[in-house]
């Protein structure tokens, strides 16, 4: 028994009244707020997202207008991030690229969650032979290298756009999520409240929807921020290789690719998208860490 548990058990007031007043999410939120690194990461993450959304709308520059006289400018008041080899404003373009990078990132993460939750939930909930079969299949897929598989998927689909990128990036990365969800469901199934629901005659879909899945939510929120960096890096890598979104649209990875030729003379063109990627990935990792601590009931406050 931990000291905090002892302290917790000591609290008690009038008979019948709640011994504490709190909600699970509020508690988690309070614990999250106490983690300074995670809060800072969350704020930076939000700022980046807001910048991506707002900057292209407010910017006086057309991000796709080619105007050679402005090419290769360093950062200045009118172009805070400078311009690229075609004279396009990088501040606006990086925000647009962020829309694509983050959009694909979240799109693929949602896809990963959907596939992972369905696969894992079915496997864990049904159990028995089906579970065994599904898990052996997963074991076989587990060995697949993620990026080559994404490249292959793009080649098979033939066209490259936002949605095909989402498919390519999610198709070989939902295995961990499926496994995590399956494990959660199996653990939760052993709870007496699930048994109580069965004893009452609650139908299987209500047991799954009301008693099992809502209790995996905490883990899923963490998973979003754990998967996001991988997907964003994957997208950047593909775009850097020239396999990503077609010009003139650009993701951060594609912008970095643009800056590669002149990286000695004009390093800002490659540095800016790279920094954006690194910052976002770092923030996502910090947020995931903070969420894990906040949502884990074992890290109760002292």
């Amino acid at each position: 028994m931990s000291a905090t548990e002892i302290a917790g058990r000591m609290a008690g007031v009038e008979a019948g009244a709640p011994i504490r007043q709190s909600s699970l999410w509020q508690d988690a939120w309070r614990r999250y707020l106490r983690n300074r690194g995670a809060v800072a990461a969350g704020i930076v993450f939000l700022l980046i997202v807001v910048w991506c959304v707002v900057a292209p709308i407010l910017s006086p520059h057309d991000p796709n207008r080619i105007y050679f006289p402005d090419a290769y400018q360093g950062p200045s008041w009118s172009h805070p991030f400078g311009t690229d080899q075609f004279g396009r404003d990088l501040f606006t373009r990086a925000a647009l690229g962020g829309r694509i990078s983050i959009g694909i990132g979240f799109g693929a993460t949602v896809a990963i969650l959907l596939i992972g939750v369905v696969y894992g939930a079915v496997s864990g909930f049904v159990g028995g032979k089906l579970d065994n079969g599904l898990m052996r299949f997963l074991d076989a897929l587990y060995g697949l290298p993620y990026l080559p598989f994404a490249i292959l998927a793009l080649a098979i689909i033939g066209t490259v756009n936002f949605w095909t990128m989402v498919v390519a990036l999610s198709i070989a990365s939902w295995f961990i999520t499926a496994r995590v969800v399956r494990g959660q469901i199996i653990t939760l199934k052993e709870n007496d409240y699930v048994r109580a629901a069965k004893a009452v005659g609650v139908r299987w879909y209500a047991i799954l929807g009301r008693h099992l899945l809502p209790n995996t939510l905490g883990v899923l929120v963490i998973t979003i921020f754990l998967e996001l960096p991988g997907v964003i890096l994957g997208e950047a890598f593909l775009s850097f290789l020239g396999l990503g979104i077609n010009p003139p649209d650009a993701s951060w990875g594609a912008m970095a690719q643009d800056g590669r030729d002149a990286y000695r003379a004009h390093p800002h063109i490659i540095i800016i998208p790279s920094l954006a990627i690194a910052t976002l990935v770092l923030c996502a990792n910090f947020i995931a860490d903070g969420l894990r601590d906040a949502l884990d009931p074992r890290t109760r406050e002292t």
Partner: protein
Amino acid sequence: MALLEVTDLRTHFFTRAGLVRAVDGIDFSVEKGKTLGIVGESGSGKSVTALSIMRLLPTPPAQIVSGSIRFDGRELTTLSERQLEDVRGRQIAMVFQDPMTALNPTLTIGTQIVEVLQRHLDLDRHSARRRAVGLLEEVGIPRAADRLDDYPHRFSGGMRQRVVIAIAIACEPRLLIADEPTTALDVTVQAQVLDLLDDLRRERDMAMILITHNMGVVAESADDVAVMYAGQIVEQASAHELFRNPEHPYTEALLAALPDLDDTRARERRLAAIPGRPPDLIDPPAACRFAARCAYAGCADSCTVEPPALRELRPGHWVRTAHPASEREAVAT
């Protein structure tokens, strides 16, 4: 002089929600060769008392804010962590509730006993192992020599608790603190483990503090009993005296709330439940902490305003209440 003397011990937890007065001014002593039973419900502070003596509570949030713990004339509250390491295991040993987590699953039980022996006694490996076999035999593990190199998972719960006890007594401590040692065990095994502890105490002239929520367990194993409620000792007496003439309304109520194994009319009877639940120790009432649940505390009573002091009603029988049973009867007649 008693082997262990605890005076006015206060252990508080500094938590975000507030100051939790887990142990709030308790006094007791344990004589050499005797067993003191500490009974109480969860949250009464009995485990915190044990962990305070061993200085095993994490600081923060826990802190011994006042009081003294004298073991064999030596003050424990001011010892450094290094000095404490020589006391723990060697002079004072502890047995915990859960035998499943008290042993390291990756080491054989022989390794774990030898480790303790070599840490405190100047023994070579060979004689330490010989000694380990002797200890396992003493706690009643069959074929002890063969089982020395087995891992904990090969033992049942009761047998594991015996191994834990063997480790605890390995260096011949003078005080053994057993915190709910049988709570995780089945009743037949519980009886065996309690008998074992009792035999060991007698043979080794060891003092023992037995912490439990089970009134039956203390009645069977303790010489003296302290009843804890909401961080305080509310009644203390010899086991015979306490169970024959309970004085505190809480002790009486606890005994009355227990179903009786030998009651032939048990099926028809309702149990005498205690209404309500213990007070919040973050902001305990200034008055008697049991007043809100007490059948005898009237609203005009002083005990609902100021706390009653611990007083010696009869030689050796201490009680913290304004309404001890013997005085109630005197008033009634």
